[in-house]
């Protein structure tokens, strides 16, 4: 950057910044235009060629155009067009890999190949949004391919990795691979919140998944394993964050976090969301921090439908957690005075 002082860098960055509402309007227009153009090419291609050949040809064409558009780096609009082309291309690759079994969504090999393609696309230079979405696709497809048995360990790994990356943002921000790491942390944060929703409580999502036979017999590594690991992630986050705190305050925080994990063990998703929110705050990412708290709020609403515990039991768990937090608040106020 040309300007010489930090304030001037900020001013220049602000001047170049495109507001979110304008980006959204541009994205809507770009996606409609992309759909029209893709549709115009795709329909005759399907009529002329064999289905798998048509899918493969169209996929190569779309992915090639997308990469070309990303290289041009001309505007926000063309970035969105390229993104639409890339996602359509990846969908066609998945369809071509599945071959004659159009609805065979459990084919591990095709899912892993698609995940690999998405991961490869994320490595190539493109927009931050495209990289994040490609990595999100790669993570999602890999989890799907690994099956229900691996869902819980995957969720733990994802949650721990997301927290770790946000906590160490200051350290990797200047690394050569920072754009890729940033995209990774975005993808992992989304996955972490989705996993918290899927596994966080035993609510209607779990039942819906079972009904759809997507995760036929979602096994648990023991009834409390998910709660224990979620609490450990929260505790580890608090431990890392408070390493420079005075000993007594640090001890209060860690005891508070442990008790919080203990009393709210029926709501492991809430613990995971809290860990992510704290880690994102440390990474100066207010948006992700707010999103994680909102997700926690939604999990609280979903908790109402939990079938493992009576409403009275849930009420008791939340009341204990609430009193604990208010007690912590009083302690904090007292220590400030």
């Amino acid at each position, binding site marked *: *950057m040309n300007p010489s002082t*930090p304030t001037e*860098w*900020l001013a220049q*960055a*602000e001047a170049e910044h*495109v*507001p979110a509402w304008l980006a959204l*309007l541009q994205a*809507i*227009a*770009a996606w*409609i*235009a992309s759909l*029209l*153009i893709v*549709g*115009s*090419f795709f*329909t*005759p291609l399907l009529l002329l060629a064999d289905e798998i050949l048509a899918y493969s040809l169209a996929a190569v064409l779309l992915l090639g155009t997308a990469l070309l558009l990303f290289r041009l780096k001309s*505007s*926000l*609009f063309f970035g969105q*067009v390229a993104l639409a082309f890339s996602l359509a291309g990846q969908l066609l690759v998945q369809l071509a890999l599945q071959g004659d079994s159009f609805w065979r969504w459990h084919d591990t090999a095709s899912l892993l190949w698609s995940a690999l393609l998405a991961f490869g696309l994320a490595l190539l230079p493109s927009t931050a949004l495209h990289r994040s979405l490609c990595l999100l696709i790669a993570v999602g497809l890999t989890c799907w391919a690994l099956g229900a048995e691996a869902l819980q360990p995957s969720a733990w790994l994802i949650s721990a990795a997301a927290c770790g990356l946000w906590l160490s943002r*200051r350290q990797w*921000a*200047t690394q050569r691979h*920072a*754009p890729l*790491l*940033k995209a990774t942390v975005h993808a992992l944060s989304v996955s972490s919140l989705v996993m918290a929703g899927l596994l966080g409580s035993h609510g209607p999502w779990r039942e819906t998944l079972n009904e759809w036979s997507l995760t036929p017999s979602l096994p648990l590594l023991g009834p409390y394993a998910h709660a224990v690991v979620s609490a450990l992630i929260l505790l580890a986050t608090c431990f890392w964050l408070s390493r420079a*705190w005075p000993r007594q305050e640090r001890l209060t925080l860690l005891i508070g976090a442990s008790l919080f994990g203990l009393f709210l063990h029926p709501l492991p998703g809430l613990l995971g969301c809290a860990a992510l929110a704290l880690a994102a705050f*440390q*990474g*100066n*990412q*207010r948006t992700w921090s707010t999103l994680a708290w909102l997700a926690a*709020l939604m999990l*609280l609403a979903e908790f*109402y439908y939990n079938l493992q515990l*009576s*409403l*009275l039991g*849930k*009420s*008791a*768990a*939340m*009341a204990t957690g*609430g*009193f*604990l*937090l*208010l007690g*912590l*608040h009083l302690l*904090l*106020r007292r220590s*400030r005075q």
Partner: protein
Amino acid sequence: MSWTTRQKDRFLQLAEQGRITTEQLRQADQLDSLQPTPEAWRTLAERISAYGGGLLLGAALIFFFAYNWADLHRFAKFGLAFGGLGSCLALACFCQPNGTLWRASLLAGNLCCGALLALIGQTYQTGADPWELFFAWALLGLPLTLLSRSTASGLLWLLVCNLALLLWQIQAFEFDLFSAESINRPLLSIAASNLVLLLLLEGLGRVWLYRPSRLLPRAAALLTLLPLVLGGCLAWWQAEASISAWAMLATCAVLLLYYRYRRLDSPILALVASTLIAWTTSGLLVLLDDTPHFIALNLIGVYLIATSAGALVWLKRLPATQGETA
């Protein structure tokens, strides 16, 4: 010098994009730490423990009553709902006017009004239509909204009003989304109501709102243009809806002139531009009906790209003139 969280995030973003070097990031870090300060952590911890604790206790209370709901007498249920409303109003009476707690308690009171009306409707099976419920809610919520002087309460009231109006139109008149005759009246009445609200907000909003914000007028502008563009696009296929198209064009012209030359507001201008792009694209769809699909779809795609790019260039140039016209 101290950086805000947003500024710290922006510095890290610049570093991630490779636009500032490690040395430059260190320079910014030396002026003020790029990590959250102990004070920021303490504030966050206090907020989470207060709001989180309150929320968990509130949820525990709701779950407790839900557990015993079937065994509660209807007067006990009303007592609970009135208790909630009364507590919110009492809290508002005892806290500092126009403070955060004052605005939050009046917003919660407004929400309790809706819950109370729903409970009355459910308990006594009054036979009232849903629009009557929303209309009553809008009426009862108006004094609270006016007293609160907050954007959040204003947005809630705007939403409730629009729902009441929409449900009334659907209930009172035969509503068919694809019939111009039945769609003109609801679309135009919703748009007209929101336009009146927009005018009121532009006239009195700055005096009424405790913390002036452009969110309410923008929401009103969106709710004005949305039904109009729907009717306007339909007019390309059904001539009976042409009145909606004329109304849309007139509204767009007025908004364009007002928000470009009297009170510069880029988001509203972007809404106007999007409305016109959507309307002309629909027109192009009709015009190219007989053209081979391959050519038509590509032409429309290219038209969308060209107009959106033009709108972006125009809108990005606008903020430079903000100081002169705002």
